[in-house]
C-alpha cells in the first residue's frame, strides 16, 4: 500500500510515508513547498484556502463546527468565525436548500453532507433546484457557488448506510457536476476547482482514504481542472477506467496483469459529469480493450454510460467486449463486504484482463 501510494506522487521521489499516520515533515521541491498529508488534511487545507481567498464563502453542515466527524473542517470555525463556518440542524434538504439560497446571492457555499448515504433527502433540492437554477431562469440567476461535499464508499465495516457510492444518480442530472478525487493531492486541487467552478458541484470524497492515503501535497493554492481525465499509468494492451478509492485496487490489478505480460493503461476519470470522453476514447482506440471498475452496484452504474459511449465511438477498434468489474446488485452488506467488493482478484479474473481460459463475469 505504501509503495502504491508513492506512485501517486508525481513530483517527489520520496519513499512512501508510514501509512495511517500523519507526518508533519515539510520538504521543498523546487519553488514549491509540500507537506505529507492524508486526505482529510488535504481537504482541510483546500477549505482553509477557499475561505481565505473569498470572504464571501461559507462552510456548513452537521458537526462541521468542531472539525467534522471526519476532521475535514478542523480549525475553520476558529479561524474564520462562526458566522462563516457553522453547524446546521440535522436536515439535509435544509442544508442544501440553504446553500442554494446563499449561492444564488453570489456567495460560495461549501456544504457538507455527513455521509453520502444521507444525501437523498436533499435530492429534490439538488436535482430540481440547484441543477436547473440557471437554466430555468434564463441565466438571470444561478447557484454556481454551491459545492456539496460528501464522504462516499466502502470503509471496511460501513454496511448499508456508511458505504454507498451514489454517484450514478447524480451523473444523470444535467446542470450539476460530479467530481471524485483519488488521493490527497488530487483532492485539494479538485476541491478548489469545484468550489470556484461557476456551477453547482457534488464532490464525493473516498472516506476510506481519509486517513489511509498519505501523499506529498503542495501547500500553495492550486487547482486541478475539471472534466479532464488523467492517464496515471501508461500501457498498450488494455485501458482501465475508474475513480476515487477504486484506483488503488485497479493499480494492484494492473501490477498483477503486468506479471503476465499484459500492459495496462490506467485512467482516473476525476470528473464524472461532464466526463472526458476524448481521453478514454483515444486510449481505447490505442489498446482495443476497456475495463471499467466501480464500487457501486453494476446495474445502472456509471460504468454503463462509459461502456455505451465507448462502444459508440470505438466499436471497430474493440478486440473484446467492454468489461465492468463492479459491486454486486445488492445493498452494501456488512459481513459480506469482502465478497461484495470489486477486488483486484475480480478485476484480474475478468475476461479483459486474463487469458481466455479463466474468464469470469462480475
Amino acid at each position: 500500500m505504501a509503495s502504491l501510494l508513492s506512485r501517486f506522487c508525481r513530483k517527489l521521489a520520496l519513499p512512501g510515508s508510514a501509512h495511517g499516520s500523519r507526518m508533519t515533515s515539510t520538504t521543498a521541491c523546487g519553488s514549491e513547498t509540500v507537506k505529507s498529508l492524508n486526505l482529510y488534511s488535504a481537504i482541510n487545507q483546500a477549505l482553509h484556502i477557499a475561505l481565505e481567498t473569498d470572504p464571501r464563502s461559507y462552510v456548513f453542515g452537521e458537526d462541521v463546527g468542531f472539525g467534522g466527524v471526519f476532521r475535514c473542517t478542523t480549525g475553520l470555525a476558529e479561524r474564520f468565525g462562526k458566522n462563516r463556518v457553522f453547524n446546521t440542524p440535522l436536515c439535509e434538504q435544509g442544508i442544501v436548500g440553504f446553500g442554494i439560497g446563499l449561492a444564488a446571492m453570489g456567495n460560495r457555499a461549501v456544504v457538507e453532507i455527513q455521509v453520502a448515504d444521507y444525501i437523498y433527502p436533499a435530492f429534490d433540492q439538488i436535482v430540481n433546484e440547484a441543477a436547473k437554477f440557471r437554466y430555468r431562469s434564463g441565466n438571470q440567476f444561478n447557484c454556481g457557488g454551491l459545492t456539496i461535499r460528501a464522504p462516499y464508499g466502502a470503509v471496511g465495516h460501513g454496511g448499508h448506510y456508511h458505504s454507498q457510492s451514489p454517484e450514478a444518480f447524480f451523473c444523470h442530472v444535467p446542470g450539476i457536476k460530479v467530481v471524485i478525487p483519488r488521493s490527497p493531492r488530487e483532492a485539494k486541487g479538485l476541491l478548489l476547482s469545484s468550489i470556484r467552478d461557476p456551477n453547482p458541484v457534488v464532490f464525493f470524497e473516498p472516506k476510506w482514504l481519509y486517513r489511509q492515503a498519505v501523499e506529498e501535497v503542495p501547500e500553495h493554492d492550486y487547482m486541478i481542472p475539471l472534466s479532464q481525465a488523467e492517464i496515471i499509468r501508461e500501457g498498450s494492451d488494455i485501458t482501465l477506467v475508474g475513480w476515487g478509492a477504486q484506483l488503488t485496487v485497479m493499480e494492484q490489478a494492473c501490477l498483477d496483469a503486468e506479471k503476465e505480460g499484459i500492459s495496462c493503461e490506467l485512467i482516473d476519470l476525476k470528473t464524472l459529469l461532464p466526463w472526458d470522453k476524448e481521453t478514454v476514447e483515444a486510449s481505447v482506440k490505442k489498446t482495443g480493450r476497456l475495463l471499467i471498475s466501480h464500487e457501486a452496484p453494476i446495474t445502472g452504474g456509471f460504468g454503463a454510460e462509459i461502456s455505451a459511449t465507448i462502444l459508440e465511438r470505438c466499436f471497430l477498434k474493440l478486440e473484446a467486449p467492454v468489461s465492468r468489474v463492479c459491486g454486486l446488485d445488492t445493498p452494501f452488506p456488512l459481513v459480506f463486504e469482502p465478497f461484495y467488493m470489486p477486488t483486484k482478484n475480480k478485476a484480474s479474473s475478468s475476461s479483459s484482463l486474463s487469458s481466455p481460459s479463466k474468464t469470469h463475469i462480475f
Partner: protein
Amino acid sequence: MAIWFSRSRNIVFSLRHNLNLSGILIKRDYSPRPAFTNSQLSSKSVCLDSFTSLRHESTAVEKQLDLVQQSDEEDPQELNFPGGKVGYTSEMKFIPESSSLRVPCYRVLDEDGRIISNSDYIPVSEKLAVRMYEHMATLQVMDHIFYEAQRQGRISFFITAVGEEAINIASAAALSPDDVVLPQYREPGVLLWRGFTLQEFANQCFGNKADRGKGRQMPVHYGSNRHNHFTVSSPIATQLPQAAGVGYSLKMEKKNACAVTFIGDGGTSEGDFHAGLNFAAVLEAPVVFICRNNGWAISTHISEQFRSDGIVVKGQAYGIRSIRVDGNDALAVYSAVRSAREMAVKEQRPVLIEAMTYRVGHHSTSDDSTKYRAADEIQYWKMSRNPVNRFRKWVEDNGWWSEEDESKIRSNARKQILQAIQAAEKWDKPPLTELFSDVYDVKPKNLEEQELGLKELVEKRPQDYPPGFQI
C-alpha cells in the same frame, strides 16, 4: 449565536463533568479500515501503535474543549439539561392537541370596507392606497384575460390568483424593492407591483424570444433579477430553505433588506417547510414567511392537510414570532407585512405570517374545482368576501376613487393586456441554440455535439418540427 453556542457547550461539559457521562457524548467512531490482513497482524505492531496514536489525535480537540471553565450552580428546584434549565412538576399533564381558542385573526377593515375602531394599523396615504387598488384591479383583469387565453388554446397553461389580490398587492406594497422575493406561484401581483410589465408577463406565458426565462418553463413561472424576484419553480416549498439562505446572505452583507417567501397551506406539509423555518430560526436569518392559507391544495381541503390550528401555531414550534391575519383585508396585510419586515431586518430573525383567504379560482387551468367543492361556496367568497371590493369601498369612502377611475383602470388594463398578448403571440420563439445554453455557465462538449446533431436533423426535416425557431 457564538454566545449561545458557548453557553450550551458549557452546560454540556458541566453535565459530563458532574455526571461522568463522557463516554456517551463522544462522536461515532469512524476508525479506518485496517489495511493489513490477519496474517500480517502479528508483524504489524508498529501499525497498531500508529492507530492508537491516531485515536489520541482525534480526541485531542475534545480534550481542549474540556478545559473550558464553567460555573453552573445546581439549583435543586430545576433540572439541568443540555437545552437549558426546565422546571419540574409532579402533575402528569399532557399539553392539549389544540388550545380551546383558535388564534384570532388580525383585521383592520370590516367586510364593508370600514376601519374597525381602535384598530392597530399603519396608515396608508392616498397615493399608496390608490396605487394598491389599481394594481389589485389590474391583477384581476390580467387573471381573467390570461385564463381565457388558455381556454382559447393560445397559451398552454395558467394559474390565477383570484381571491388573493389583497395578499398579492398589499404584501408587495409593504416591502422595499431590495427585499428578495422567493415566490411559490400564486403571487404574480408581487412582480406586477415591482414593475414587471404586462408585456413581460405575456412573453413568459408564450415563451417567446423576449421571455426572460428563454422559453424554458411553463407559463406563470416568472422570474426577474432586476426586480429581486427569484424564478418560480413548480416543486412546492423548495424556496423556503433557500429563503433562509438568502436572508442569511443579506444579514452578512448588512443590507437593509430581508428575504420574503410565500407558500400555500398545502405547501406547509412539505419537509422543506420544516427545514426552511428551522434553519431561518437557528441561523437567525431575516426572512418573512408568508403562508397563504386559502383552504385548498388542488382538491385537498385543509382538514385533510393538517390537524393543527392552521399554520400560525407552527411558528412557535420553531421559535418564530407569528401572526394570523385576514388575508382579504389589504390594510391588515399591509400592516402585518410591513411590521414583520421591520422586525426581520432590525432583529435579524424570521417572522411567520398566516394570511387567511380563499382560492376563488381553480387550482390552475388543468383543474375544475366544481368537481370537489360546492359552487355556492365559490360564489360566496367571490361575491361577499371579495378583497378587491372591500378595499375599493375604503378607498372610495375616503374620496380617493370614483366610478370613472374604475372603468378607466379596467378598460386600460384590458386593452394593454390584449395588446401584450397579441404581440407576444406573434413573436418568434427563442432561437434553437437556447435549448442548449445555460445548462452550465459554458456549454460542455456533449451539448455542443448534441446541438450540432439536432441542427442537422432539423435542417434535413423541418416539417417534423414546429415553426418559429431560428436555427
